C-alpha cells in the first residue's frame, strides 16, 4: 500500500487512507471517469472563464457588462467597442507597434545568444567542469532576484546610457532576462546530440560554424521553437520593466497601456476588455498554432 512508504505523519496517513477509500468506493460504482472528468472540467472553467469574460466583455456595452446581477451570456452583442478604442486612444497603435518590436527583437537576440552560449557550454571543454554546470548555473542565478530589485540599478544604468524610454532599452533588458531560460531549455537538447554528429559534418566538408547551422540547429529544432515561444510570451506580457523604464508612447508597450485604463476617476471596463483581447490574441494564436512543437520542446531534452 502506498501509505506504507510515506513518512509516518498521522495526518498524511489518515488523508491518504481516506482518499484511497473514496477511490475504492467510486470505483465500485464505476464513477471514477465521471469524477476525474468533472474535476478536469472544473479546472478548465476556472482557467478559461476570465478569458471568456474578457472576450465577451469586449463585445458588450458598458451597461450590459456591468449589469447587476451579472449576465453570464449577453444577447446584445456589438463590435462598436473596437473602433471606439482606437478613436478614444489613437496611441494604441503605437503601443501595439512597440510591443511587436520589443518582443521580436528581444526574442531574436535571446534565442540567438542563448543558443550559441548553450552550444559552447555543452560542446567545448572548460576547466573545472565550468561549462557543464557552473557557468549555466551562474547564468540562471540572474533570475533568482525579484525583478523589482534589479530594475532600480537598471534604471540608473539606462539613464546614463541614454536607453531610458527607448525600444532598444527594453529589447536589451528583455533579451538579458530571457537568455537564462533559453540556456536551460536548450541545454538538454545539446547534451543529447552525440559528438560524432558534428564530427561527421566536419568530415563531410563543413566548418564547425557550418556544422552548427546546417546540422546542429535543425536537430534541436523542437527546443529552439519552444525557447522562442517562451521568450516571446515573456516579452509580450512583461509589465514591470516597461512601466519603470519607459515614460511615453515612444517605447511603452501594450501591458503598460492596459494599466492606464484604470484611472483615478474610473475604469473603462468596456475598452479595457477590448485592449486586453487585442493584447492577448497574438500570443494565444501563436501558441495554438505551434502547440505540438511547444509541448515536444517542453517534454524533450532537459525534462525527461
Amino acid at each position: 500500500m502506498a501509505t506504507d512508504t510515506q513518512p509516518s505523519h498521522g495526518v498524511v496517513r489518515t488523508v491518504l487512507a481516506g482518499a484511497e477509500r473514496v477511490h475504492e468506493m467510486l470505483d465500485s460504482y464505476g464513477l471514477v471517469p465521471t469524477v476525474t472528468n468533472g474535476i478536469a472540467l472544473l479546472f478548465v472553467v476556472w482557467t478559461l472563464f476570465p478569458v471568456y469574460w474578457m472576450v465577451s466583455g469586449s463585445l458588450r456595452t458598458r451597461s450590459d457588462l456591468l449589469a447587476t446581477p451579472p449576465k453570464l451570456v449577453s444577447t446584445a452583442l456589438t463590435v462598436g467597442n473596437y473602433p471606439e478604442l482606437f478613436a478614444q486612444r489613437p496611441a494604441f497603435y503605437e503601443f501595439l507597434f512597440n510591443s511587436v518590436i520589443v518582443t521580436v527583437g528581444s526574442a531574436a537576440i535571446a534565442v540567438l545568444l542563448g543558443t550559441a552560449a548553450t552550444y559552447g557550454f555543452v560542446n567545448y571543454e572548460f576547466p573545472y567542469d565550468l561549462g557543464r554546470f557552473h557557468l549555466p548555473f551562474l547564468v540562471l542565478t540572474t533570475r533568482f532576484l525579484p525583478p523589482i530589485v534589479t530594475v532600480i540599478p537598471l534604471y540608473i544604468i539606462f539613464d546614463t546610457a541614454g536607453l531610458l524610454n527607448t525600444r532598444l532599452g527594453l529589447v536589451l533588458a528583455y533579451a538579458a532576462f530571457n537568455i537564462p531560460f533559453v540556456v536551460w531549455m536548450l541545454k538538454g537538447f545539446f547534451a543529447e546530440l552525440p559528438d560524432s554528429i558534428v564530427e561527421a559534418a566536419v568530415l563531410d566538408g563543413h566548418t564547425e560554424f557550418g556544422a552548427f547551422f546546417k546540422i546542429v540547429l535543425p536537430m534541436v529544432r523542437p527546443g529552439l521553437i519552444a525557447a522562442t515561444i517562451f521568450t516571446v510570451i515573456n516579452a509580450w506580457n512583461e509589465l514591470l520593466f516597461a512601466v519603470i523604464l519607459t515614460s511615453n508612447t515612444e517605447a511603452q508597450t501594450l501591458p503598460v497601456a492596459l494599466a492606464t485604463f484604470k484611472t483615478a476617476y474610473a475604469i473603462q471596463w468596456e475598452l479595457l476588455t477590448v485592449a486586453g483581447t487585442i493584447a492577448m490574441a497574438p500570443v494565444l494564436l501563436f501558441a495554438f498554432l505551434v502547440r505540438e512543437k511547444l509541448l515536444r520542446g517542453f517534454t524533450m531534452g532537459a525534462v525527461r
Partner: protein
Amino acid sequence: MVRVRYDDVTKRYGNEIGAKDIDITVEDGEFAVLLGPSGCGKTTTLRCLAGLTDPTEGEIRIDGTDITDRHPKNRDIAMVFQELALYPHMGVAANIGYPLKVEGVDKKARRERVEEVAETLDIGELLDRETDELSGGQRQRVAIGRAIIRRPSVFLMDEPLASLDAKLKVEMRNEIKKLQRELGITTLYVTHDQEEAMTLGDKLIVMNDGTVQQVGTPAEVYHDPTNQFVAGFIGSPSMNFLRVRRKAPGSQRVVAADDATFSFSVEGLPTAVDDTDPFVLGVRPQYFSVHQSPIDGAAKAKVTVTEPMGDEQLLTVQLDGDGREIAVRAPFDVAITRGDTIWLGVSDERAYVFDVETGARIRQTELSTDTAVPTGSRP
C-alpha cells in the same frame, strides 16, 4: 597512390597519455586494422588522422604531405563512426549525398552518384526512406555510403560493427572487405574484436596502453607475437601463460617456477633461459597434446570443465599440484569427462617464451650464448 604515415605521433590529455610514439605506415590501398583493448589509444590514433584530435607531438603525412595542422574537411578523409552519426533530420538519399551537397555538386549529378553508391551497397530501394525506419544493418550501409560517395583518399572506420548482432556482423564484415578491395581505398579500421581484425586486415596494428605493440599481417601477429600482450590478446581462447623455470640448468624439463608442482618437457627452449631463472611459457590451447595415460615428459592434470564444440572440445584443466587452470583444446573423439586425469604434452615449435619482467618475447635465434641477456623484440 595514397600512403599514410604517422611520424612519432603522441597525444596527451593533460598528464594522461592517449597515444604515444605512434610510428606506423599504411600503404596505398591497404586495409590496416588498429586492434587493442578499450582505452589502448587506437581511436585516438585514428582521430588524429581524421583531424578530430590534435596530436601533441609528431607529424601525420598523406602521400608525403604533412596534414597534421590541416582542417578535417581539407584532408580528403571519410569516416564511419561507431554511432554511425547519420543525420536524423534527413532521409537516406540526403544522408548519402550530403558530402557532395556540401561540396556544391548540383542536384542531378548528386542523385546519380547517390543511386550508384546505393546500388553498390544494395540499398537502392531504401533511398526514399527516413533513417529511423531502417534496421541496424541498413543504417550501417547508409553510413558507409555517405563515407564512400566522395571517393575519399583515406577511409576510416571506428568500430562500425560494434552495435550489430553476431550474424549481421559477419555479413557486414565480408561486405566491407569486398568493398574495400573493389574501391582500393587506403583504409584504417579500429576494433577491439581480434576475430574481426584477423579476418579484415591486411595489416594489424596491435596497441596497448597507448603504444603500438606489433605491426604485421594477421598470421605474423598470431604465430609470431613480439610480446606477451600480443600473444595473449590475439587468439581465442587466449594463450595460456605459465610461470616456469628449467628443472636444472640446460634441462629440457620445465617446472612451475615457484614450487615445482608440475613439470613437463619442452624441447628447443631458447638458450637465454638455460639457467634456472623463471620465465613465462606461452602455449595456445590447441598446441597441447592430450593423453589419457601417462607418457614421458607430459604434465599430469585434472579436467574441471569440458565444453564440446562440435569438431573439438574445450577443456579447462588444473595442473597437478597447482591451483592454476589452463585451457586446452582436444579432438572431439577423445572420451574425456569432468574429473578425469589427463597428461599434457607440449609441441616445442609452438611454445613461446617471454621475459618475466617485461613480457618481451625471448627468441631462440636472437641469442647465441648462455650468458646473453634476454632482450626479445621491441615491447
